């Protein structure tokens, strides 16, 4: 069974600081996704990472994938309040378009 673990589960950080969310998964996969969820809202796709070494950036967020280490990171640079949300990684572990989600990281940016 594919397991996807995120850490930390909760992250409270000050505006302007940098931090990284980690996503580890238990089986070989070269398809990893990051989603954002605001309270009471749906999931918004942030990044799709489809190969080892893939790096994607959008604004203050940057995601990377290391398939050999079975690790993806979501790096936040100079955090702003608007980034407060829950972030999920999801892995398509068997190439069958079935996503297994991580536990989520609830990020709170403090002014």
């Amino acid at each position, binding site marked *: 069974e594919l397991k996807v673990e995120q850490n930390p589960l909760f992250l409270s950080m000050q505006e302007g600081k940098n931090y990284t969310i980690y996503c580890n998964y238990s089986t070989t996969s070269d398809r990893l996704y990051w989603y954002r969820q605001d309270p009471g809202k*749906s999931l918004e796709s942030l990044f799709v990472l489809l190969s080892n070494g893939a790096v994607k950036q959008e604004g203050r967020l940057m995601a990377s994938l290391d398939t050999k280490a079975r690790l993806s990171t979501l790096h936040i640079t100079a955090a702003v309040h608007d980034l407060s949300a829950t972030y999920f990684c999801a892995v398509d572990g068997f190439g*069958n*378009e079935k996503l297994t989600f991580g536990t989520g990281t609830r990020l709170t940016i403090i002014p």
Partner: protein
Amino acid sequence: DTAVSQTPKYLVTQMGNDKSIKCEQNLGHDTMYWYKQDSKKFLKIMFSYNNKELIINETVPNRFSPKSPDKAHLNLHINSLELGDSAVYFCASLQSGTSGFYEQYFGPGTRLTVT
């Protein structure tokens, strides 16, 4: 235009009742999913359909029965509702088989509360 829509947005009902949630996508995708998000925000896949055919059926009580009348619609019927069914249910869709890009688009969610 909403890409993936769900109705209703909120559903409050009593234990033992039967209820349905509807999902429609206008993206022309051929694969649709149901996910359950529990009170701890944990998301888990329940079902997926490809061109009206059931592809994924996770360990879900058989009180839950998905139905896909056509590839743009995937409904979820729940019999004999229990307290533990309270959750947010998300529908999602995907165009499978496209080269290299398999992004799932999620609907707004249906918050089901069983009392």
